């Protein structure tokens, strides 16, 4: 009798140990996805810069915001294509079609509006009217805003240490993106600041809405819907507004189009991993690991372009790394994402 009880206790202990190992593995996989999403987005950003420096994007006959918006449209279109191929070859093609027609699928479309055309347009207008330093500084806050929204609407648990990591990563991003004031005048500076708030809110909302929906949808399918919707809105709503079709057609058939196709592969991988990370580790950690792209853009920039390291870049990179380590330090916190 005693040996049976001891045996049962031994099995129960073993079950608990294996359960915790499996949950920890799930949590760590999610953190890895988050970290890799930052790496691929850093690469994406560098390659996007290369693409936008090619003809016809350098044609000065276009207003300054046309080239980036056309580039963003093509990028999201190509990314939707790559993600569709991934879903096709992993047996999710029918899943994609049936998901679009559901209420959760339609909610993803809403998230796509916030995070895609709205956010990107606001981002570019912010740069146009307030300069890149202020715009990037404000938009780097999006993980903090996303985490607050996630705590309120998704009831996500975020530890004090994870918050410290989020804030540290944001500070690191600010340092990396800092440009000393050059004395240039921005006559519509406050309008630019207002525009910069749009992507901050847009990307935070996209993350929270998409995470809510991914409780019911496969992340690979959700991000495919998101990219497809973003491209459709860009193509049918934004392109006519900015008279971007000529540039779109010209860029599509030359080398810049090919570079964008490859860039979008990196972007689609980043987005897929970001969505998986949000689903597996929660919005706050996934977003924070995603903004390590500021660090990766330095690494890839040094190797692919003629980026020169300076004190701000190195300091920012170190601070981002510390922040990321704080976020991932205790995967056991992720065993139960919500209250």
């Amino acid at each position, binding site marked *: 009798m005693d040996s049976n009880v001891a045996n049962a206790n031994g*099995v129960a202990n*073993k*079950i608990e140990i*294996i*359960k915790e190992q*499996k949950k920890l593995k*799930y949590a760590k996989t999610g953190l890895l996805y988050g970290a890799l999403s930052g790496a691929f987005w850093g690469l994406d950003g560098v390659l996007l810069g290369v693409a936008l420096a090619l003809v016809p994007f350098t044609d000065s006959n276009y207003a300054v915001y046309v080239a980036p918006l056309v580039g963003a449209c093509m990028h999201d279109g190509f990314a939707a294509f790559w993600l569709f191929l991934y879903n096709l*070859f*992993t*047996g*999710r093609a*029918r*899943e994609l079609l*049936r*998901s679009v027609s*559901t*209420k*959760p*699928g339609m909610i993803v479309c809403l998230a796509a509006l916030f995070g895609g055309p709205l956010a990107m347009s606001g981002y570019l207008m912010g740069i146009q009217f307030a300069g890149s330093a202020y715009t990037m500084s404000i938009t780097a806050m999006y993980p903090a805003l996303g985490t607050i929204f996630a705590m309120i609407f998704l009831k996500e648990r975020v530890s004090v240490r994870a918050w410290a990591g989020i804030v540290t990563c944001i500070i690191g991003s600010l340092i990396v993106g800092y440009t000393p004031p050059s004395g240039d005048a921005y006559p519509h500076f406050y309008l630019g600041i207002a525009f910069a708030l749009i992507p901050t809110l847009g990307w935070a909302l996209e993350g929270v809405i998409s995470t809510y929906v*991914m*409780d*019911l*949808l*496969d992340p690979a*399918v959700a991000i495919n819907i998101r990219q497809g919707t973003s491209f459709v809105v860009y193509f049918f709503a934004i392109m006519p507004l900015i008279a971007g079709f000529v540039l779109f057609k010209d860029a599509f058939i030359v080398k810049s189009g090919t570079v964008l196709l490859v860039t979008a592969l990196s972007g689609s991988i980043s987005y897929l991993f970001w969505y998986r990370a949000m*689903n*597996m580790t929660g919005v706050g950690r996934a977003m924070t690991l995603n903004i390590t792209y500021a660090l990766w853009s330095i690494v890839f920039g040094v190797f692919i372009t003629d980026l020169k390291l300076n004190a701000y870049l190195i300091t920012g990179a170190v601070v981002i790394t510390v922040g990321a380590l704080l976020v991932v330090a205790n995967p056991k916190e992720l065993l*139960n*994402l*919500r209250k």
Partner: protein
Amino acid sequence: MKKILPMRFGILFALSKQKNPMSDIEIMKLIEEDYKGEGQFKETIVFGHLTALCASGLISESSTSLIGESDLSTSYVISDSGRERLKYLPASLRS
């Protein structure tokens, strides 16, 4: 024509119709009719959906048993949060 839900949602819906906890293998058999023949209908993917549903609190673990030396079979039930999400079911599936 029967409306088939996205698989993760379909698993939640299938569990909502059960009175007793269902094991991961039983859940696979339950949804097999809707997803058989699709490349995504594999243990790794279905069990991944179950883990995600559990992590989000839409289902909860009822019991776990050991299979062999290191494999587990877990039984699940839908939670109150999970029932609340059934509001997104299409009208044709709501009863």
